[in-house]
């Protein structure tokens, strides 16, 4: 009895959680649908939601396949960009000299427009997935770097004193104190970096691809096939939301001790 009651309450909670965004989306879709019908908007300008959904449900395998390509590129770029950023941040957090030497380079990477380097990457790295991964890595790099440097430095000074009073090595201090302390900062960075990595992969695909949702968008655009274009965008949104939700689940497990988890 108690179990089913608990399950019911869980379901009710989930419903309460999902209801507001679903209602908003449905209302927006309806308004959009009615608008296109009443004003008789041509589908090559703005397709009606019903048209987009028909396109999606007509060939779900296609969008899933292309979406998977983009997701793998995005996640590859995210992993690469974050990995390099964490390495750089480790160096920078330990030495002001390193920080001063590496920061200009990082800012240079940050201010370089992705659209400008994307064609270059294609020339350098060919038409495979490599240039897409690199572009995704490039735009995830900076937010992770900046947050990681702050995170590695934001340690409890008293805990730091305790470790110093034991003559703990820099490596031990990093592993036992700096890295775990930085987790809240790292997760904030990841939450920004994951959507960015998807954008990076898509931009990469614009310039050179026959695979992935970015290329689907380019091709659909040149064919004035707006239904496919919007379906691809919807698929991208779905990927972004799924990855973000996944990240939140991991975060809740890792940061169980943090104020953000304890107060909610």
């Amino acid at each position, binding site marked *: 009895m108690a179990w089913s009651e608990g399950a019911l309450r869980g379901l009710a909670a989930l419903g309460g959680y999902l209801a507001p965004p679903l209602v908003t989306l449905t209302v927006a879709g309806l308004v959009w649908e009615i608008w296109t019908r009443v004003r008789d908007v041509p589908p090559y300008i703005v397709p009606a939601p019903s048209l987009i959904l028909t396109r999606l449900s007509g060939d779900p395998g296609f969008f899933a396949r292309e979406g998977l390509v983009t997701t793998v590129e995005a996640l590859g770029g995210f992993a690469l960009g974050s990995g390099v950023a964490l390495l750089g941040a480790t160096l920078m957090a330990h030495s002001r000299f390193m920080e001063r030497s590496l920061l200009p380079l990082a800012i240079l990477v940050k201010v370089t427009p992705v659209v400008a380097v994307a064609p270059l990457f294609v020339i350098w790295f060919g038409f495979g997935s490599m240039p897409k991964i690199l572009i995704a890595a490039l735009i995830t790099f900076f937010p992770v770097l900046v947050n990681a440097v702050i995170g590695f430095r934001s340690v409890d000074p008293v805990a730091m004193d305790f470790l110093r009073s*034991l*003559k*703990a090595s820099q490596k*031990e201090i990093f592993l036992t104190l700096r890295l775990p302390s930085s987790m809240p900062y790292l997760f904030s960075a990841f939450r920004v970096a994951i959507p960015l990595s998807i954008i990076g992969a898509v931009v990469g695909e614009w310039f050179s691809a026959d695979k992935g949702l970015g290329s689907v968008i380019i091709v659909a655009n040149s064919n004035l096939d707006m239904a496919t274009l919007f379906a691809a965008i919807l698929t991208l949104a779905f990927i972004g939301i799924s990855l973000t939700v996944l990240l939140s689940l991991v975060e809740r497990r890792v940061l169980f*001790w*943090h104020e953000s988890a304890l107060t909610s």
Partner: protein
Amino acid sequence: MARVPHVRVEGVSKTFGSGKQALTALDDVTLDVAYGEFLSILGPSGCGKSTLLRIIGGLMETTAGSVTIGGKHPKEAQAEKAVGYVFQDPALLPWRTVKDNIRLPIQVNRARGGNGHIPPEELLRLVGLERFPHYYPYQLSGGMQQRVALARTLAFNPTLLLMDEPLGSLDEITRAAMRYELLRIWEATKKTVVFVTHSIAEAVILSDRIAVLSARPGRVVGVVEVDLPRPRAEGLERSEEILRYSKLLHALLIQGGSHAAPAGR
């Protein structure tokens, strides 16, 4: 027994900053602490008690003078894991359980094992937390957290304990109880303790000797020997002797430039 000093503080001065902003926190402090002795440092807020402790513990350099621990430089004593620090803030690692927090000092600086380890179970029994090894710090009260911090410092069996107002963040009732608990633990482990406080009663109840520091810059105004039998019984804070020592210490504090040190606590 001859008084071989465990800690020797000789002519220590400490100045922060330079030029117009220079601030002298400690001025020519000389002090010895014998092996197994419980010495309290008593003084008004801002007189340099924490600074003195940090210098003894090797966390800060002196501007003048020197400190030795067992004849060695504090940094060397640190490397040998001979110095155990307890701070006012327990500063436990919130992502570790009580037991894993207690293991922390054993996990770092392994090369110089120090004086051997005490098993976490035994430590938890010593501080009365044997039922909480798997709790996280946020599930514990402030007093319990401070006991974990104490257990963590005892875990690597340091010969010297440096305590910077370890009971300062506790309420009056818990604090009184923890005093006797601390005494019990100290009597069981027989370590040298340098204990910073600004509670007069606390200093008298716990200490063998009390060094009184003047208001900034901190100088030693006087050292009072507490001639009360051990083990010290609970309820000491209401005895005649405490009052006698309190008056004496209070006079020293006033002489050192403290404005309104309460005679009570």
